[in-house]
Structure formats: C-alpha cells, structure tokens
C-alpha cells in the first residue's frame, strides 16, 4: 500500500512502527468528504487476532470487560476494553463472533505487541485450550460516509448480497474478504479485511469511483467529533474505563469475574468524562488544565472541529461539572472560556450541538 499512498503524494508519518499517511493534501477537505460523501482509510496498521478452540468463549468472558455472552449470532461484534489487574485499560478493541469456537479481535497498532503478550500470558495462566493467531497477512481498509456502502458495492458487486442486510456492528465473510459495518468516524460504512496483496487493487477501484483517500489526520478529527475515545490519549493503563466515558462497555451486572473487575471502584466513577466546545478563538489540545470553580480537570484530546468550525475536546472533569456549565481552559498564557457538552459533537453529517 505504501506505493499507492506515495502515488497520491501522501504526507507520511511513523505510527506504531508503520509508515502511515497523515493526509493527502487538506485534512479538512478529507474530513468533509467523509461527512458528506465517502472517504477511505488504509488502517492496515491495526491487527486482527483470531482466537479459536472450544474454550474461546469462556476465555474471552474473562479477558475482556464487556460480556461476549451478548454475541449470539455469528458476525455480531462488540466494543470492549481489555483491563489489567488494577482496572486500567490495556487496550480497547472490537471482538467479532465468527462461528462456534472462533472469534476475531481487532486491536490498535501501537498496542498490538503488548496485547499479544498479555493474551498469551492469560492463556498460560488459565491453561486455556485455545489457539491465538495474529493475522499479519491481512490488510484493512475503512470506507466511511453516507455514500460508503454504495461505493463498496460498486467496487465489489458480489459483496452486496451478504453485506446489504448487515446492521451496525455486524460483519459477513465473502471468499477472502471480511466486511464489517463498523467504523471510527460517526458515519455509516464498512471496514474491510482482506489479504494484503489484494488491498492495492481494491484501493485503486474505490479511488476510480471517487472515494476520497483520507489520512490519520482526518480520522482523528472525525472520531473526536463522534465522541469516540483514542487509546493512549483518552485512556491508558492508569485510567479506569469508568473515568473515560466507557462505563457502557463494562458489563458489571453479572457474576462473571473478568480481569480488573475487582479493582473497579465500587462507588463508580471519580471523574465526569465530557466534551468541551471552545467559546473563543484558539485550539484545544490534550493535557490542558480546565478550571471549574475551585476544582480542575484535564483535557484528554482536542482539536479543531471542521463540522462545527470551533475547537472541541474530550476532558476528565470534576463530578460536580455538568453539561451546560462554562469552564475555562488554560491555553498557553490565556484562560479561554469553554462550554461543557455531552459528546458526540457531530455524527451522520450533522452537528449535534
């Protein structure tokens, strides 16, 4: 895929050991293309890990904080965190139920090696009869936007039959393709896994159809507007999922003992994880102090929102702070007023504020 990105004059950056496109020109135009039409991202740096064997379901019910018992129909997916013993987030991931004793995890690039070591050590500690298969042979292309599904069907006509009935967070296989109705943008679309050598061909077909190539830059502003967390910024091994707006991904209402459960605070969250919209000029970034009366909070990620034409951020704020409040963010030597909101900021092409 590197040659394909170079042919499009992509600006490349090193990311998690991969050379990845950050933009192909204007990051803002790429962002708008996804909100208004269709854009595509090469996300081959993310790793698929297949887990197989009769003990897989039991293994995953202990490994991750959401409950795989929710996955009844083959093809169904679940977003979850994998926690350490102290309740911190090792990684966030999507788990797909492929069939009877087969599941597929999709994990972040920067954490892939760490995740594999962790999963391997859990397998050994629990003497679980499972096989762990990292799929370095697969590439991944996300096609996102209101026209994304139609464009994928135009590029791969035979995929329409199996993918048109898919609901969000469902996937289907077709020959060597694995196509999921998932994404990281707040728009409709598919994420496609396919053998690496076939990725340049699919990319070229989508490009001919007018799908805009988009880099990691637009991916970040799209996920931020959609109120989706980024691992390493909005949560990490020191952060409880309850303090990162991820309580909805932690299934606590059962007897299941998953890793980290005992360490999660009994009284729930210690912070309110909310959004900020800057009311004056400037740009919010991660790690800025938020003054909320006598207490302070911290932004975890921030940028300029191309949809709102204002700067936005995600932030860990004191429990007393509620949506609608006005706070002040320290940007260099200024204290700039910001409004507290409940994310998401924008989805499906529309501002939500």
């Amino acid at each position, binding site marked *: 895929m590197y040659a394909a990105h170079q042919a499009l004059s992509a*600006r490349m950056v090193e990311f998690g050991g991969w050379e990845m496109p*950050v*933009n192909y020109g*204007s990051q*803002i135009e790429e962002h708008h293309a996804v909100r208004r039409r269709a854009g595509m991202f090469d996300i081959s740096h993310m790793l698929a890990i297949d887990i197989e064997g009769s003990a897989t379901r039991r293994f995953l019910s202990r490994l991750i904080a959401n409950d795989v018992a929710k996955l009844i129909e083959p093809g169904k997916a679940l977003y979850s965190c994998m926690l350490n013993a102290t309740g911190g987030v090792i990684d966030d991931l999507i788990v797909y139920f492929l069939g009877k004793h087969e599941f597929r995890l999709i994990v972040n690039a920067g954490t892939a090696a760490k995740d594999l070591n962790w999963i391997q050590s859990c397998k050994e500690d629990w003497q679980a009869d499972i096989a762990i298969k990292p799929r370095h042979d697969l590439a991944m292309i996300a096609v996102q936007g209101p026209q994304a599904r139609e464009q994928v069907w135009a590029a791969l006509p035979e995929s329409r039959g199996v993918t048109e009935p898919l609901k969000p967070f469902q996937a289907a296989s077709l020959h060597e393709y694995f196509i999921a109705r998932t994404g990281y943008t707040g728009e409709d679309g598919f994420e496609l896994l396919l053998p690496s050598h076939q990725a340049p061909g699919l990319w070229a077909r989508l490009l001919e159809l007018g799908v805009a190539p988009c880099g990691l830059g637009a991916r970040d502003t799209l996920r931020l507007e959609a109120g989706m967390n980024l691992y390493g910024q909005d949560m990490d091994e020191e952060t409880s999922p309850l303090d990162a707006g991820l309580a909805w991904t932690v299934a606590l209402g059962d007897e299941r003992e998953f890793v980290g459960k005992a360490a999660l605070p009994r009284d729930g969250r210690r912070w309110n994880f909310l959004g900020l919209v800057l009311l004056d000029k*400037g*740009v919010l970034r991660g790690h800025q102090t938020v003054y909320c009366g006598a207490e302070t909070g911290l932004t975890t990620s921030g*940028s*300029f929102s*191309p949809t709102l034409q204002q700067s936005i951020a995600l932030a860990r704020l004191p429990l007393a702070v509620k949506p609608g409040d006005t706070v002040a963010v320290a940007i260099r030597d200024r204290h700039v007023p910001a409004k507290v909101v409940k994310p998401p900021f924008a989805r499906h092409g529309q501002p939500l504020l």
Partner: protein
Amino acid sequence: MSLIPSDLKYTQSHEWARRETDGSVTIGITDHAQEALGDLVYIELPKLGQHVEAKQEFVVVESVKAASDVYAPMAGTVSAVNQDIADAPETVNGDAYAAWLVRLQPDNAADIESLLDAEAYRAIADEG
C-alpha cells in the same frame, strides 16, 4: 517540492523576511512550513508596538494537527500585523508568501543581510 522565491531571505526555523522601501521587514512562514503544518485554523499575533528580540517566539500558528511557534528573525518593534490572516488562517496555506503575518521595524537595518538566501534555505527545507 515547496516554493522558495529567490528575492526573499529565510531562517532555519522556516520564516521568510522581505525588506520594504520604508525600512520595515515583512515576515511570514515558508511554503515548506505551511505544508508541514497542514490546514491552519488559528493564528495568534503579537501586539502593535511590542518589542521582540531575535529568535524570540512572537506568533503562534495552529493547524488542525499541532501548534507551532514562529520566531522573530531579528530584533525589532512590531509595526503592523495582518488581521486578515488571523480571521482566515487558511489563506496562509493558499499562498504563504502573500499571506504575511507581521511587520517589524528592525533595531538594526543590516540584520536582514545575515539571514539565509533561497539556496541555503532550500538545503534546509529539503532535509525535512
């Protein structure tokens, strides 16, 4: 490859400078700099009459990606700021040499001569 006009002077930190007939020096960021930063969305300009030292940060440019300081190429007093680009930062992406940021009245008129010429700056820009 980025544009580097031969009639301007440059710094290692990617500013350009041009001497005007009234003795002031017009300053902006290079095409290479705007390309590296990506879409600009916010520019913080200094106050009129502020005195700055050479290599002092006196402007902040922020793209969607990151914030970056702009350094004064020489000591001087801010004699004009371009309010148009503060209102429309994307014009710097459009033409980094037309969209100037600040005019300085230099303390020492000869200081501009010690800046890099286009050829010397080209070598720096090509390195990244």
